[in-house]
């Protein structure tokens, strides 16, 4: 089923794109991760220009996360103060990120940058998950997680503008929260992700936010960060393809239902190993793209189409 993408300016196989969305949806249902960090590379692999892939992915994330965020808000799992301060950084980061994309596209190196960032991020996520799940399979338990980043916690406590977050029951520096939000917002624009893979561990391990509040607050910030990134990409780079986003969402929403049901029947650790292997495989694919001599040294600057 061929579908012509108006902004990408190319036809794609609609079933293939919906299938990719479905695959990532199944993963998000199974593992409770967003999966944006897999969707952009998969879209690049099937020939969507990287900038269009990332921006449309951000658009899709708005659809995929808004109902979940609303549910968490109703259940009282969102620390509004933490979320709003985080968003100050997130909105700023996303706006700067869209401008970074523009500059990099101008010199023809956005594709390079996005692959490089993906290799680094996917190595970290995939490697961490692989080791964690391997340990879990062997029945080893890690020591008290609070004892580990001791130095860093001291540094966090030393930062100025400490404030109380009552819903989470923590004290943290506004500076750190805004800075973290900025980083995640910037990556959201560069990679087309929600950034849960950074927000969640940072909130849980570094700030000590209870897991369920971290999940709710993360989803809350993802909705608004992704809305801003979608808007910024549309006005600075003209790379948001709504048709692509809708097809992806159609796939991912069905996939997520399937994944959520599957997750009740399958064993967690083995699944996590599988996910980490998939993540590492995507990373290797991106790395090969950076290391091997291109088939043709002359390429279109903006990737894909001639506009």
């Amino acid at each position, binding site marked *: 089923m*061929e*579908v*012509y993408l*108006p*902004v990408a300016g*190319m*036809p794609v196989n609609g079933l293939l794109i919906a299938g990719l969305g479905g695959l990532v949806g199944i993963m*998000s*249902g199974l593992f409770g991760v967003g999966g944006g960090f897999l969707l952009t590379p998969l879209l690049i692999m099937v020939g969507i220009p990287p900038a269009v892939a990332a921006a449309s992915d951000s*658009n*899709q994330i*708005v*659809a995929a*996360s*808004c*109902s*979940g965020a609303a*549910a*968490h808000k109703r259940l009282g799992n969102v620390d509004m103060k933490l979320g709003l301060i985080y968003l100050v950084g997130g909105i700023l980061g996303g706006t700067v990120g869209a401008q970074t994309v523009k500059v990099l596209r*101008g*010199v*023809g*190196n956005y*594709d*390079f940058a996005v692959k*490089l960032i993906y290799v680094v991020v996917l190595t970290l996520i995939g490697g961490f998950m692989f080791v964690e799940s391997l340990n879990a399979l062997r029945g080893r338990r890690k020591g008290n997680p609070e004892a580990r980043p001791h130095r860093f916690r001291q540094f966090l406590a030393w930062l100025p503008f400490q404030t109380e977050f009552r819903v989470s029951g923590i004290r943290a520096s506004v500076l750190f929260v805004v800075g973290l939000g900025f980083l995640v917002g910037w990556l959201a624009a560069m990679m087309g992700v929600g950034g849960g893979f950074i927000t969640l561990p940072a909130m849980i391990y570094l700030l000590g936010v209870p897991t369920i509040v971290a999940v*709710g607050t993360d*989803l809350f910030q993802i909705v608004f960060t992704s*809305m801003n990134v*979608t*808007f*910024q990409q*549309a*006005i600075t780079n*003209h790379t*948001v393809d*709504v*048709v692509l*986003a*809708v097809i992806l*969402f159609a796939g991912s929403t069905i996939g*997520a*239902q399937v*994944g*959520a049901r599957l997750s009740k029947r399958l064993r967690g650790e083995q699944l996590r190993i599988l996910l980490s292997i998939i993540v590492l495989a995507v990373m290797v694919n991106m790395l090969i*793209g*950076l*290391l*091997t*001599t*291109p088939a*043709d*040294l*002359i*390429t*279109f*600057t*903006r990737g894909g*189409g*001639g506009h």
Partner: protein
Amino acid sequence: MRRLAWLSLLVLVWALLPVGGAVAASFTVTPQTIEVGTGFHGARIKVSGKVPEGSDVYIKVVSPDRPAGLSKQGRKGGLWMAVETVTVRGMPGMYQVLASGAVRDLPPELRAQTGIDPDYAALRANARVTEKQEDKTVELPPERAGEFTAGLVRLYERRGLYAVRDNAVRVQGESFEAEVLIPADIPKGETQITVYAVKDGSLVGNNVQPLHVESVGLVRMMANMAQTNPVTYGLLAVGVALAAGLSISWAFRQLNRLIFKEEGVSAHH
């Protein structure tokens, strides 16, 4: 002085007349318009008509110029990245030549006269390749521009936009017929299809027909809005996503309640 003016006017009129003054080639293009809509994935255009008997037929398909941004990849610190970025202007976004025999059999003087350019040499020579250096735009000299125009030809050939096809026109007596393959990323605007009839080494007929390429429906609306009204488009994109997300999740909750008699699984956490 006045005589010179008349003379130049005469030359101009002569130059504007169809080549060789011959019109003994008539043809039709079906369809005459390509509509790029939601289901578009390329098209096949039928070109058929009449030429003087015993002629070789050449068909030239040229779309409007389309500026192209190109990068040259180079190795830095072991990784491949863009090391040079240029803009190529003045080359058509699509250029195809079809012939009843071999395109290269066309004698050089007729190549110049018809603009049929099987090696793309004249097309590339016409192109302007510019590079941004600090704040000004500099045109590259031919020896450096060649690498980029050759690369652009390869990129276009790979997409089926540029093609030279021998034995692609069937001729039977006075009639000829050919099929032009139009790839999905054909430039919008008016593409010119020109038919040349060549007999005994000289041009005995030629004619030109337009092929209109335009986006329609949703594709036209979205593509236009994304470029000319990005603020509205951005808000629309966000609005569509919110509406889709909230309504689908509501629908799934109802569905789960009906089928599984349970509270819906919240898919995204």
